[in-house]
């Protein structure tokens, strides 16, 4: 199956995201937590209790499905009350909770509609209300925004984050959209080929990717070959192809010598005049993007290096295509990647 080795802990009231390309095992992991699939080995604990042998209907988790999976033979209100009815709640409590939930997702006016008579965004909100109504301890969300158009998706991202903060429920969110993960999550687990590559906060993951896959999957990155001179703790000294040395961030426990790969975000480096900076090359291309401009530099060792600089109203670019330029970046910017 799709999951090789995954071990993680998720805290109470956390917005936790499983991020990875399709087929990386993120949905399988989510379905295991929900109880639709069982792991061949390993355990699954929730609040200190082993739930690996519990069937889905006995787990205190609810799921928002990618396809929403609304019951087509029930109305909006009946869909939302389903879980509460199954739990055997008293009628007046069910009614109160359903009203509250429809209020929460702004669907009160649609209570008696069939699910086929409402739009995709509305279906999405009903699916959310249905999963939140039984007040689960953990809410699982399987790419719930992927079927929505761009604008609606943006709105729902903020909406989901608001709901999570208001209800205090732990959200486990699955997505392949890195931007979605970065904007909503408290912590992100980046997955690839059935295992977890890195866990950390959005800033952590973006600024300090642990390995090439993570650096490549999230945002744009420049990769540079460099020689490790020394390493202590999270700091390393590396020698670049230009012969100059600089300080870089490294994983705890990086040691030894030899060639390593550095990752540098395009917006973390800046252009300088010829002879300045720690790398030198020729400015190959300048691409204007409105909010910012991309500078494509061919370094002297042949590597391509992209820089991104925010545009300001006054300053026209002082660099010309074809000219010799230098590239500089700060001590904490380059990240030594794990092999």
């Amino acid at each position, binding site marked *: 199956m799709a999951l090789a080795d995954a071990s993680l802990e998720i805290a109470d009231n956390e917005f936790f995201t499983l991020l990875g390309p399709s087929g990386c095992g993120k949905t399988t992991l989510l379905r295991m937590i929900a109880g639709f699939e069982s792991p061949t080995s390993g355990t699954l604990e929730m609040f200190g209790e082993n739930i690996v042998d519990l069937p889905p209907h006995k787990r205190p988790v609810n799921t928002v499905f990618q396809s929403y999976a609304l019951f087509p033979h029930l109305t909006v209100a009946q869909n939302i009350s389903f879980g509460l009815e*199954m739990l055997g709640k008293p009628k007046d409590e069910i009614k109160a909770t359903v009203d509250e939930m429809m209020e929460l997702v702004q669907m009160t006016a649609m209570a008696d509609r069939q699910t086929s008579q409402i739009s995709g965004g509305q279906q999405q909100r009903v699916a959310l209300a249905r999963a939140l109504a039984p007040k689960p301890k953990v809410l699982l969300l399987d790419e719930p925004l992927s079927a929505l158009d761009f604008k609606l998706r943006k709105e729902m991202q903020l909406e989901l984050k608001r709901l999570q903060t208001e209800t205090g429920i732990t959200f486990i969110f699955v997505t392949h959209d890195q931007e979605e993960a970065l904007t909503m999550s408290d912590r992100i687990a980046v997955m690839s080929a059935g295992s977890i590559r890195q866990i950390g906060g959005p800033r952590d993951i973006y600024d300090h990717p642990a390995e090439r896959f993570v650096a490549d999957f999230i945002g744009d990155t420049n990769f540079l070959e460099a020689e490790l001179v020394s390493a202590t703790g999270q700091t390393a000294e590396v020698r670049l192809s230009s012969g100059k040395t600089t300080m870089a961030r490294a994983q705890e426990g990086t040691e030894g010598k030899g060639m390593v790969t550095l990752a540098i975000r395009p917006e973390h480096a800046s252009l300088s005049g010829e002879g300045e900076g720690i790398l030198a090359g020729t400015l190959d291309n300048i691409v204007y993007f409105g909010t910012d401009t991309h500078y494509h530099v061919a370094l002297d060792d042949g590597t391509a290096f992209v820089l991104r600089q925010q545009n300001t109203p006054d300053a026209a670019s002082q660099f010309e295509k074809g000219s010799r330029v230098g590239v500089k970046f700060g001590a904490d910017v380059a990240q030594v990647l794990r092999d």
Partner: protein
Amino acid sequence: MAKNKGFNIRRQTGFTTIALVCFGMLYLPIVLLVTYSFNSGTSIAIWEGFSWRWYQSAWANEQVQEATVRSLVLAFWASLTATTCAVLAALATTRTRKFKGQSAVFAMINQPLMVPEIVTAVALLILFAMIKVATGYSGLLYLVVAHSAFCIPFAYLPIRARLQGMDLSLEQAAADLYATPFQVFRRVTLPQLWPGILAGAMLAFVISLDDVVITEFVKSAGQDTLPTYMLGQLRRVITPEVNAISTVLVAISVTMVVAFTLLSKIKN
């Protein structure tokens, strides 16, 4: 580039002729049968004028009445039993983890479609003869059991098709919302499955109503169903009364099959 118009079989020479011949072969005999059921004479081949007399005579015929009631009772119980079995079988073959020999089970459920009917008929005749000797019972139950058995695949196939076409995530969503397996079936699976169940039951009903071979072998004396009564009549005198009964049977079957088709098309 030239526009690719694709292959259209309607432009083949003789297509219309062949189609007409096929439809003629299918429907001409039935049209003739229906027409002569309104014959005022006693012949099934010489037209003498329009009348309802053969319908009246069939309606008044006690043997026909008895056989009709027996046919309907038999078809009711057989389709009920077969449909119940078929629902369980369809659930077991679509809603469980894939198990070893699943396709063998599928083949076994559909056995009546593959074993020649005459073989089943002889086999049942022998088995039931043994039971009759042992128990002395010779009621309608033998026919109900036999009909139920060969009706199962006809009920099973549409129900299974419906189950396979259903979105599995709906049942998972119900389980996720604390529904026990039985509640999942009762509250989510069944409300979506009923058109399939009805369709299967109707098909089974028509198949049972129509059966001659197995019924002829299994029935005890005085247990004629409508088709075996007609067969018996044909051996003696042929009057348009048989046409009239047949016409009614055609009407029932067509109604059922149309209902079956409409039910199969109901979307979730």
